[in-house]
């Protein structure tokens, strides 16, 4: 319950989400999915709805839908069917949409996400497959124009229970779901291209004088950004309180209405009600046969499920010892998170790796506008760099220098995909990227050769007699003198000497000198 205009108000919000699936081809035909192609160039008799053409189901679309359903903890239907939903619209060439009515592919799920220091738990009513419509374009004077490139794109419709209670929570749900579908690889979910669209339905329970009043449900259509979603919900909450105060109208069957979002005015606006109440006349599509999702198939899809972002965040916090505030930066991009896990498997110290990812690797990625996974550095080399620093072979400054070199050399490497050198013997170009080799070439490897370090120490002591004297004669100056001498050795060695060994040797030498003086 929140307080608005002196009233105790509980917003009740459900979401319908449409997600375009990342198949290569459309749902019922072999036309490629395409955004921005020449109008009506990615069409064929099937998606144009030409006389005599028939749909054939895309296996991949089913698999991506099931994968999403599993991630939403939905039950999958053993037997699912296709139905026709009838309505006339120029962007719908058959004037029916193939969808799923009473036997959806999945149902009864739940989506949990952290919000306001608690776990929000929103039940999912169903997630079913359907086809997208084409697009009506309004750029021409005096007419509308229809482009059917999008017609027949596979679409997953996810319907939540009305269990969200604020604009912030609704947006967070959407953000987390967006991350989830990208994580699962089921959708690019590019919001600008309309690959993920939200339709919240919103009403309020208003408590006044011990009575509860429920305002009529409003569905806001086709929201294409988190900002619009948040704005639409926030706007509706205020508007409905004011509306109720003015009119006192409460929800009854049949007074649900649709509104749109005006991006410029940042307000929801009434949509012209259709002159005919919708009667979709659902019935089973006789051109398609039912789909049986047998246990073996579902089990196979389950096996290939990635670790989901929310549990992975928790694991990263505990395993990689990263602060909770930094964890999303490591988890959000699945390939980057996978790369981090792979590097850890190659023996890189986890905490060091995470620090590298959050510091210089993140910087390089930012500069290039890509995720870390696309920098082209293999998990093996990431691990090696972490190991070098951990073992004290190179210091922190040198580590960052080596990383810079790795990035510089990747730019010269053979063009093309894979970050991983899969063969046992390294490709020569890969070998050039080895952090150890780079460190050697840069001369930043820390020397652990005792004779060499002893020589540097002697040089330093010889040319800094004053400091030596201070150290052995004045207990108060010992610490400072030792630090100064260590610094001198590091300078002479060009930073290559292992500071621990230097310290030990200086102590040893000073002791010797002190002894001889006695």
């Amino acid at each position, binding site marked *: 319950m929140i307080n608005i205009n002196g009233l105790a108000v509980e917003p009740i919000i459900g979401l319908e989400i*449409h997600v375009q699936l990342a*198949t*290569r*081809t459309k749902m019922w035909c*072999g*036309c*490629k999915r395409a955004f921005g192609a*020449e*109008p*009506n*160039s*990615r*069409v*064929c008799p099937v998606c*144009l709805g030409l006389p005599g053409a028939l749909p*054939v*189901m*895309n*296996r*991949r*679309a*089913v698999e991506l839908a099931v994968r999403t359903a599993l991630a939403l903890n939905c039950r999958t239907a053993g037997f699912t069917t296709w139905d026709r939903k009838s309505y*006339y*619209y*120029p*962007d*719908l060439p058959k004037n029916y*949409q193939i969808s799923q009515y009473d036997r959806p592919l999945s149902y009864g799920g739940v989506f949990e996400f952290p919000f306001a220091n608690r776990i929000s738990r929103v039940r999912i009513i169903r997630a079913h497959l*359907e*086809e*997208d*419509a084409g*697009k*009506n*374009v*309004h750029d*021409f004077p*005096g*007419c*509308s*124009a*229809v*482009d*059917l490139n999008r017609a027949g794109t596979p679409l997953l419709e996810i319907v939540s229970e009305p269990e969200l209670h604020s604009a912030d929570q609704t947006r967070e749900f959407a953000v987390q779901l967006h991350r989830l579908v990208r994580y699962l690889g089921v959708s690019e979910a590019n919001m600008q291209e309309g690959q993920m669209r939200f*339709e919240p339905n919103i009403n309020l329970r208003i408590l006044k004088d011990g009575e509860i009043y429920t305002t009529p449900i409003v569905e806001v*259509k*086709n929201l294409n950004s988190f900002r619009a979603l948040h704005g639409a919900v926030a706007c509706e909450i205020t508007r409905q309180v004011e509306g109720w105060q003015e009119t006192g109208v409460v929800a009854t069957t049949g007074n649900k209405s649709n509104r*749109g979002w005006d991006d410029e005015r940042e307000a929801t606006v009434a949509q*012209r009600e259709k002159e*005919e109440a919708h*009667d979709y*006349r659902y*019935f*089973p599509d*006789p051109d*398609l*046969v*039912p*789909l*049986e999702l047998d246990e073996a198939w579902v089990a196979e899809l389950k096996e290939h499920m990635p670790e989901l972002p929310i549990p992975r965040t928790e694991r990263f916090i505990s395993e990689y010892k990263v602060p909770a505030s930094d964890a999303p930066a490591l988890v959000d991009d699945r390939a980057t998170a996978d790369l981090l896990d792979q590097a850890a498997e190659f023996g890189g110290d986890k905490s060091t790796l995470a620090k590298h990812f959050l510091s210089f690797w993140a910087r390089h990625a930012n500069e290039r506008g890509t995720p870390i996974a696309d920098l082209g550095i293999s998990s093996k080399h990431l691990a090696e760099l972490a190991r070098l620093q951990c073992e004290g072979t190179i210091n922190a400054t040198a580590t960052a220098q080596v990383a810079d070199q790795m990035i510089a050399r990747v730019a010269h490497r053979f063009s093309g995909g894979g970050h991983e050198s899969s063969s046992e013997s390294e490709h020569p170009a890969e070998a050039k990227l080895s952090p150890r080799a780079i460190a050697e070439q840069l001369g930043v490897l820390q020397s652990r050769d005792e004779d060499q370090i002893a020589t540097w120490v002697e040089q330093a002591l010889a040319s800094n007699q004053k400091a030596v004297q201070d150290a052995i004669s004045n207990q108060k100056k010992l610490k400072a003198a030792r630090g100064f001498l260590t610094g001198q050795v590091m300078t002479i060695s060009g930073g290559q000497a292992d500071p621990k060994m230097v310290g030990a040797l200086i102590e040893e030498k000073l002791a010797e000198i002190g002894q001889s003086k006695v």
Partner: protein
Amino acid sequence: MAAVIDEEQVWHIAKLARLNLSDDEVQLFAGQLAEIFAYFRILDTVDTEGVEPLAHALAVTNVLREDEPADSLCSEKALANAPQREQGFFRVPKVLDQGSGT
């Protein structure tokens, strides 16, 4: 199963079916539809308790194609039968809202 098929009902159905029927047609169809649906009520006499609907005589499931691209029509061919076109689009009278909102 009582279905009242009067002229008002015929208007409603014609609207749903996007048929701009003339008054004469509405009158004619009201009579014919009423007669035909009265005949269809013969099914009321069949006991279908516990009978599963049969939408398709085929007992086939899971007909799927692989996600492999095939040739599309070029836009010239796609628009070849269009009654009116506008620069590569199908032209229609002004539509007010943004899309069918599937």
